[in-house]
């Protein structure tokens, strides 16, 4: 059964809101998605009935809270087909997940002169932690360039990976919408003895995800981009890698024993979950996974491909040469994130005009300044489509862009 965006929209209370007598056209889900009633209710219900600190006490509430928290971990495991729930680490967000890998795995495994390979389409979250490590350890960073249509240029991948210890890449670009061939990239990394660190922040909310089929070693994503709340992210890592890594943050919960002369870390995944975790948010993420599971991720992907194909077509028809799309022009291996350049109109001004009709798009560098430099722009306007968007939203975007060109035509 295919996804019906009109029905889906009814699940999201915020989308009932009108501003100045007009409905919202929310096209910024790549930055953060809206939340369905099921998630809001699950979090409220948990707070109202079962909230207590987890993993601490024997009383009934604490047991219920712990059970809710750990059930969410099982849901995450199944959602990404991880071999074991002990490999699912809850973090604050994908940024923290990637920092955890760079800090903990990186410090344990990288020495001066070692190389880490990144790509020109990475989000700052998958660049800066490695740059921090590079500055501290004297490691070399190498970069996979892009093709003209916004895909990875892989012809010299083997040279770049030669002697590298890690290959860190996004599964889907948050600017271009490009979906990368994760399996092929992971295999290439492994052939050179490097680990594959996958930023799947833009992928997990939109595409059926199987970490084993991907061949990844680490995979990071955030709850708030997949209908869940802010404040919770996930790091999945292969067990033997996580086992061999030193802890990241120290504190309560992550220890088996603490003495005056030192500590023994807790077993996985507690080892990487120091302090009181985002309990309510984890429960909310579990509810978001249930919600997406009911929609069916294959249908989610099919819907987004269809609405993106429509958007690309209508934008081209309505705006022609005045509009440039940064990134793949076909929907093969492409997600619902569309970065735009409108001739003669700065992205900030584009988004300001679109706001007149409640069309919400992001304008800026999207935390990908190296990519902006590659594209030769300071910023783009980015529309991103999700489960609650349909063809009428693409039409509203096109109307707004036409209005922006009219307003700024000199």
């Amino acid at each position: 059964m295919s996804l019906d965006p009109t029905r889906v929209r009814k699940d999201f209370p915020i989308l009932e809101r009108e501003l100045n007598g007009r409905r919202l056209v929310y096209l910024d889900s790549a930055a953060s998605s809206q939340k369905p009633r099921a998630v809001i209710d699950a979090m409220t219900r948990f707070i109202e009935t079962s909230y207590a600190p987890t993993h601490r006490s024997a009383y009934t509430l604490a047991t219920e809270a712990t059970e809710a928290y750990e059930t969410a971990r099982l849901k995450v495991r199944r959602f990404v087909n991880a071999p074991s729930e002990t490999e699912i680490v809850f973090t604050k967000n994908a940024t923290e997940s990637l920092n955890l890998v760079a800090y903990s795995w990186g410090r344990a495994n990288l020495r001066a002169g070692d190389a880490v390979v990144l790509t020109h389409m990475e989000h700052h979250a998958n660049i800066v932690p490695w740059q921090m490590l590079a500055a501290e350890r004297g490691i070399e960073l190498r970069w996979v360039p892009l093709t003209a249509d916004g895909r990875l240029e892989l012809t010299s991948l083997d040279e770049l990976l030669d002697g590298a210890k890690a290959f860190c890449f996004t599964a889907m670009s948050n600017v271009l919408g490009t979906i990368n061939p994760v399996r092929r990239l992971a295999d290439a990394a492994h052939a050179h003895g490097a680990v594959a660190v996958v930023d799947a922040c833009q992928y997990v909310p939109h595409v059926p995800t199987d970490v084993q089929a991907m061949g990844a070693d680490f995979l990071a994503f955030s709850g708030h981009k997949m209908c869940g709340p802010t404040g919770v992210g996930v790091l999945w890592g292969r067990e033997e890698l996580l086992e061999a890594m030193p802890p990241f943050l120290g504190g309560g919960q992550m220890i088996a024993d603490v003495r005056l002369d030192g500590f023994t870390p807790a077993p996985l995944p507690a080892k990487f979950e120091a302090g009181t975790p985002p309990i309510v948010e984890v429960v909310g993420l579990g509810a978001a996974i249930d919600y997406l599971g009911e929609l069916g991720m294959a249908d989610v992907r099919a819907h987004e491909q269809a609405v993106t194909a429509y958007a690309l077509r209508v934008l081209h028809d309505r705006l022609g040469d005045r509009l440039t799309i940064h990134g793949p022009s076909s929907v093969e291996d492409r997600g619902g994130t569309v970065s735009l350049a409108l001739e003669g109109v700065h992205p900030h001004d584009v988004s300001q005009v679109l706001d007149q009709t409640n069309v919400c798009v992001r304008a800026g560098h999207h935390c990908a300044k190296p990519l902006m430099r590659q594209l030769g722009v300071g910023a783009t306007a980015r529309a991103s489509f999700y489960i609650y968007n349909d063809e009428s939203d693409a039409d509203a975007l096109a109307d707004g862009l036409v209005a922006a060109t009219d307003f700024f035509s000199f």
Partner: protein
Amino acid sequence: MAGLEDLYREIILDHYRSPRNRGELDMPPAVRAEGFNPLCGDEIVIYVVVDDGVVRDIKISGQGCSISQSSASMMSAAVKGKSLDEARRLVRAFKAMMSIHEHVLDGDDGAEESEVLADVKLGDLEALRGVVKFPVRIKCATLAWNTLVQGLDEAAAPAGR
């Protein structure tokens, strides 16, 4: 709801279409200051020549939205030929106009600062007053001014003389 015409006044669009004092200057005598809006990637470079306590020349390059570009253009026209002291007072007056003051929280009207700067004539720059109604755009409008302050500080520093 504040409409587009509150933000994009005709004079703003005019400065955006035909920016004044666009370009670069030889260094020395000019000093160069660079500003970034980390949120949106806008960049501005200001070249300023200060001689005998007067802003003799100013040129601006870089890229940005209509608000940041027109604000920079109007600023360059407003400070050229002014004394350092006048230029600094203009910066203060402009930034005061662009601020959402804490006195909004306290219920007073911020009259004190206004009195000090009452004699500063903002002229065309008044057109940017509407930007305050669009809080995320305030940083666009102030980018050039913050960068100018860096340039003036450098030009006024002993090593820059």
